[in-house]
């Protein structure tokens, strides 16, 4: 039994793997709440609405303190809130509040509203922590209210009112953005929103004022009042807007090329994906996901990675509309997510969540080598670490976009030529196929990883 390093907080149970399967142990302390979840009809309603992960009871050997072992449905790729775009975080927040509203109807309540408990499955947010629902006790305030404000409301408000890139604060503050910090960073105009004023600004003041005080409660919080708070949070989240500036279609640097070469590139990619039949594809530097959409026709899941918030936002909204098997994420590949949290083991690095069956790196290598000064051997070595197969594009120095990059770069960049490219990649990959894109100077390569 291998206990999942991130599953240590809840005394009522934990996640573990055995073989290649993942299970959740429910301890006797969590028995009552689990039974209520199953018998109240809440589980069925949430699973039917695709808000809660489904599970089956597992018949495997268990320890003495174990009441039950369940096997949740498989989540193919775990992503983290600091990798989500604005609309993903907003959808996750609304899903959490919807779950809490439904739970209250069944006399249950969320004891935990961590954004890390939400995962995107088929582009929709899903609560993966079956044990985060507990019996609702009339009169008790919502125990997960503070966590909701710190994990969802504060980052959304900062993204919406200040700058969308502030979501990366969640990387530093894994337990949510402290409300006093959010309150200081938000502009004064945010105080004109009653809901932001209450749940962030006054909440932060209240935390500071009552933090060390021991006082006795005279009255609780009625069910109606609690519902009022949930609806007010819902209104606050719904009011958050972020519209990227500029035009999205400018992102594809192939826009300078003829339709013939664009079509040819699509065809080559489709043919190679069909040949590889990968389960999981990582499209790196995916922009708005044009090539991810081609890959997703054959792959079970395509992780569509880009550092640009506007591109990922557009990609996610399109994915949602088309119900594609794509998970768009905001990740800068020159600084990918690292291991974080307790013992540097709680949240996994991007590398540890791989390797992907296939990596797509189109119109990317020249950006890495010329703009980011990453030498070709380093690029090849990195792709070898994260992918079993590679579909990569080489653009020569005579290419219009490469010329622009070289002109913009004052300092000398690393060696960059077709010969050097092949020499570096051959050290880590076997070239299966090489083909020139029609009507352009660019070359596409299909490569297979040489075992490390």
């Amino acid at each position, binding site marked *: 039994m291998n206990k999942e390093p991130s599953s240590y907080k809840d005394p009522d149970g934990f996640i573990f793997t055995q073989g290649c399967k993942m299970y959740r142990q429910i301890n006797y302390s969590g028995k009552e709440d689990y039974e209520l979840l199953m018998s109240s009809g809440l589980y069925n309603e949430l699973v039917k609405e695709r808000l809660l992960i489904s599970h089956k009871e597992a018949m495997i050997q268990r320890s003495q303190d174990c009441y039950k072992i369940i096997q949740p449905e498989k989540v193919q790729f775990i992503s983290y809130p600091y990798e989500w775009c604005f609309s993903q975080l907003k959808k996750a927040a609304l899903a959490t509040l919807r779950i809490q509203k439904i739970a209250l109807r069944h006399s249950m309540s969320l004891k935990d509203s961590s954004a890390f408990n939400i995962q995107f499955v088929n582009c929709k947010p899903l609560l993966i922590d079956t044990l985060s629902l507990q019996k609702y006790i009339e009169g008790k305030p919502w125990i997960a209210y503070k966590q909701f404000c710190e994990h969802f409301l504060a980052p959304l408000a900062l993204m919406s009112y200040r700058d969308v890139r502030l979501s990366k604060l969640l990387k530093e503050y894994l337990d949510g953005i402290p409300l006093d910090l959010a309150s200081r960073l938000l502009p004064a105009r945010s105080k004109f929103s009653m809901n932001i004023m209450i749940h962030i600004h006054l909440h932060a003041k*209240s935390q500071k004022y009552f933090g060390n005080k021991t006082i006795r409660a*005279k009255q609780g919080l009625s069910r109606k009042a609690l519902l009022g708070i949930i609806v007010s949070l819902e209104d606050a989240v719904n009011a958050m807007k972020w519209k990227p500036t500029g035009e999205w279609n400018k992102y594809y640097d192939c826009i300078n090329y003829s339709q013939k070469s664009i079509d040819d590139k699509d065809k080559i990619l489709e043919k190679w994906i069909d040949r590889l039949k990968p389960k999981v594809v990582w499209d790196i530097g995916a922009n708005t996901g044009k090539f991810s959409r081609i890959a997703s026709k054959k792959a079970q899941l395509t992780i569509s990675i880009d550092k640009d918030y506007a591109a990922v936002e557009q990609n996610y909204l399109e994915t949602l509309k088309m119900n594609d098997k794509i998970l768009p994420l905001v990740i800068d590949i020159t600084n990918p997510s690292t291991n974080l949290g307790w013992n540097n083991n709680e949240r996994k690095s991007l590398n540890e969540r791989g390797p992907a069956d296939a990596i797509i790196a189109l119109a990317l290598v020249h950006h890495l080598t010329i703009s980011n000064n990453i030498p070709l051997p380093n690029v090849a070595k990195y792709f070898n670490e994260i992918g079993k197969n590679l579909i990569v594009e080489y653009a020569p120095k005579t290419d219009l976009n490469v010329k622009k990059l070289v002109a913009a770069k004052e300092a000398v960049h690393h060696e960059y030529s077709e010969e050097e490219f092949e020499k570096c990649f051959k050290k880590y990959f076997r070239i299966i196929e090489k083909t020139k894109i029609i009507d352009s100077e660019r070359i596409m390569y299909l490569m297979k990883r040489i075992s490390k």
Partner: protein
Amino acid sequence: MNKKIALIIAAVILLPSAYAYLDPGSGSMLIQIIFGSILGALFTLKMYWKKIVKYIKRLFR
């Protein structure tokens, strides 16, 4: 809007002496108790308002 803010500030200044909690999250619990009844009442009003609007719309149909 000014009236709303004045009401919120008054609530925060006046109510803390009456309600309280014991754990480290007491500030978060208290803010719920302080504003819960106001937000609950607003929610109820909103529900009734929707019903009234629906009723009036039906009258003029």
